[in-house]
């Protein structure tokens, strides 16, 4: 093995350890944050007993879950019952591996380690575990594996509540994945690439995509909520109907795995929104962050973290604002509103891009960005005017006709 290869593996292992450790600790703290935010929004202080301001609450929860009894329901399909938490946990973790967390770090070293030998690294080090050229295709592919965790957990538990939760989860995630995938096509059209680092570069050169592709952003955000099974789309675990949905029968650490997976999904979706539509690690109104260096890497990571953190907070904010959808409302929103909207938006964007390039001859990202921004202001107004009046969302509101009860005796 060449010294360069060894250097690559060494930095990759270090990145793996650092990022996954940070993610797991962050997820633990997010459970606390969620309870704190929930408390604050209900004029309560939230957990404040374990440690200062309740900061050790996640640790207490973790210890509790570790020492609790593992139960296995009678008639459960044991192998799948054991596998299901892993199926939902692992993809959730994997998703964050491809998202660039900061500007690439110029890193040069050349030294000899005992047992390993000479390790060399030269050039830019991307601050993501793997800077995959297939970027978000990977995210879409791995993200859809998460549905197996929920479906298998529901089926293998041998419980009606779990089964219903699992079925709902599977149906919901597959439905919204369609809209989610389609909402990203305009991003592809505008970048001409699927790798995250290219998408960020394009946004640095032009505008953050939230402006030029506002409808995409909106669809992606709504579909992202559904993908994470968060309120208002948490029907798979609707506790008022299904006890706890697909994880009714799980206890101790296996239940914890589902919790970690859910929060890891929130992190991923927030990171995706920040990366795809808010410039990733880009610091706006300056080109200083693109020069490369340790200070730039740290500063851009702070910028990325703040963006991601806002969207994490946004997810919790929505949770304590909106009530849960009814199941048919959920399905009609996904299939009758978001999917046609995403399809139409692809066509409009593609047509507009063609017109902008051929008709006006604007080819730089900035010109295209501003042209699409203008288009989106108009489109956004129209779409939200129609959505807001419930003309498209008839199914979501109500079919409208009072049911005739006269002949039913």
């Amino acid at each position, binding site marked *: 093995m060449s010294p360069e290869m060894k250097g690559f593996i060494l930095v990759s292992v270090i990145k793996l350890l650092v990022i996954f450790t940070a993610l797991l600790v962050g997820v633990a703290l997010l459970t606390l944050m969620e309870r704190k935010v929930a408390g604050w929004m209900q004029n*309560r*202080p939230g957990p404040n007993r374990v440690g200062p301001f309740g900061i050790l609450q996640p640790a207490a929860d973790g210890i509790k879950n570790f020492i609790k009894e593992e139960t296995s329901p009678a008639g459960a399909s044991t192998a799948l019952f054991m596998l299901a938490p892993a199926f939902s946990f692992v993809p959730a973790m994997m998703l964050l591996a491809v998202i660039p967390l900061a500007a690439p770090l110029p890193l040069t070293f050349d030294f000899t380690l005992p047992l390993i030998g000479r390790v060399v690294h030269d050039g830019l080090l991307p601050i993501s575990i793997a800077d995959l050229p297939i970027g978000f295709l990977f995210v879409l592919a791995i993200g859809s594996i998460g549905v197996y965790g929920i479906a298998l957990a529901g089926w293998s538990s041998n419980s009606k509540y779990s089964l219903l939760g699992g079925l709902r989860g599977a149906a919901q995630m597959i439905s919204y994945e369609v809209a989610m995938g389609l909402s990203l096509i305009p991003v592809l059209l505008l970048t001409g690439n699927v790798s995250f680092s290219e998408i960020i570069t394009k946004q640095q050169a032009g505008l953050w995509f939230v402006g030029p592709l506002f409808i995409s952003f909106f669809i992606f955000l709504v579909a992202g909520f559904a993908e994470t099974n968060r309120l208002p789309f948490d029907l798979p675990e609707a506790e008022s109907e299904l006890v706890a949905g697909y994880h009714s029968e799980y206890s101790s650490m296996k239940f914890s795995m589902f919790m970690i997976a859910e929060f890891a999904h929130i992190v991923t979706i927030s990171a995706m929104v920040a990366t795809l539509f808010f410039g990733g690690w880009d610091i706006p109104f300056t080109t200083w962050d693109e020069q490369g260096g340790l200070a730039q890497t740290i500063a851009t990571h702070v910028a990325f973290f703040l963006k991601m953190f806002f969207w994490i907070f946004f997810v919790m904010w929505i949770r304590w*604002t*909106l009530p849960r959808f009814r199941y048919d409302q959920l399905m009609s929103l996904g299939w009758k509103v978001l999917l046609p909207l995403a399809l139409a938006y692809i066509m409009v964007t593609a047509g507009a891009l063609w017109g902008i390039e051929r008709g006006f001859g604007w080819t730089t990202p900035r010109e295209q960005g501003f042209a699409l921004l203008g288009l989106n202001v108009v489109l956004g107004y129209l779409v939200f005017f129609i*959505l807001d009046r*419930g003309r498209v969302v008839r199914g979501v*509101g109500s079919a409208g006709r*009072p049911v005739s009860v006269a002949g039913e005796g």
Partner: protein
Amino acid sequence: MAIGVKVMERPTGDVSYIRATLKGMALTFKHMFQARVTLQYPEVRSSDDWRIATRWRGTHRMLTDEQGRSKCVACGLCPQICPANCIKLVPGEDEAGNRYPLIYEIDEFRCVFCGYCQEVCPEEAIHVGVHYENAEYSRDRFVYDLERLSAQVHPVSTLWDPTDPRGE
């Protein structure tokens, strides 16, 4: 659809979804910065604007006379009126002909805390009290005998006074 259920037609055309959501979000955000209403319970048990009601009906208490004997004369009215049948009374009589309870037990688990025993008592002996912290490690500790009922020191409930219906 169940028979006879009236289904309201919603004004779908006038309903605003986006604005309603944004309004709701503004509301929840505003609440994050409002004063907390939580009482830090074990340390703080009452505040300026909240105290446990004087009409609270909690753990029973048997009042005693100056010699430390219970006021109960074992008339049998409280077990008679008790709707939950949680009072066990075995009357006794001393040489002077005074009746007193040989056994007086209240099962706090069965009790529904209606306060009838206090209302019916002619001697003002048994009372429900303004007290709610009675956790124990075993179930039989919830059967309070005469000695334990007499040893309670919490204030007794004022019950409902028809002349002062709002407790002012």
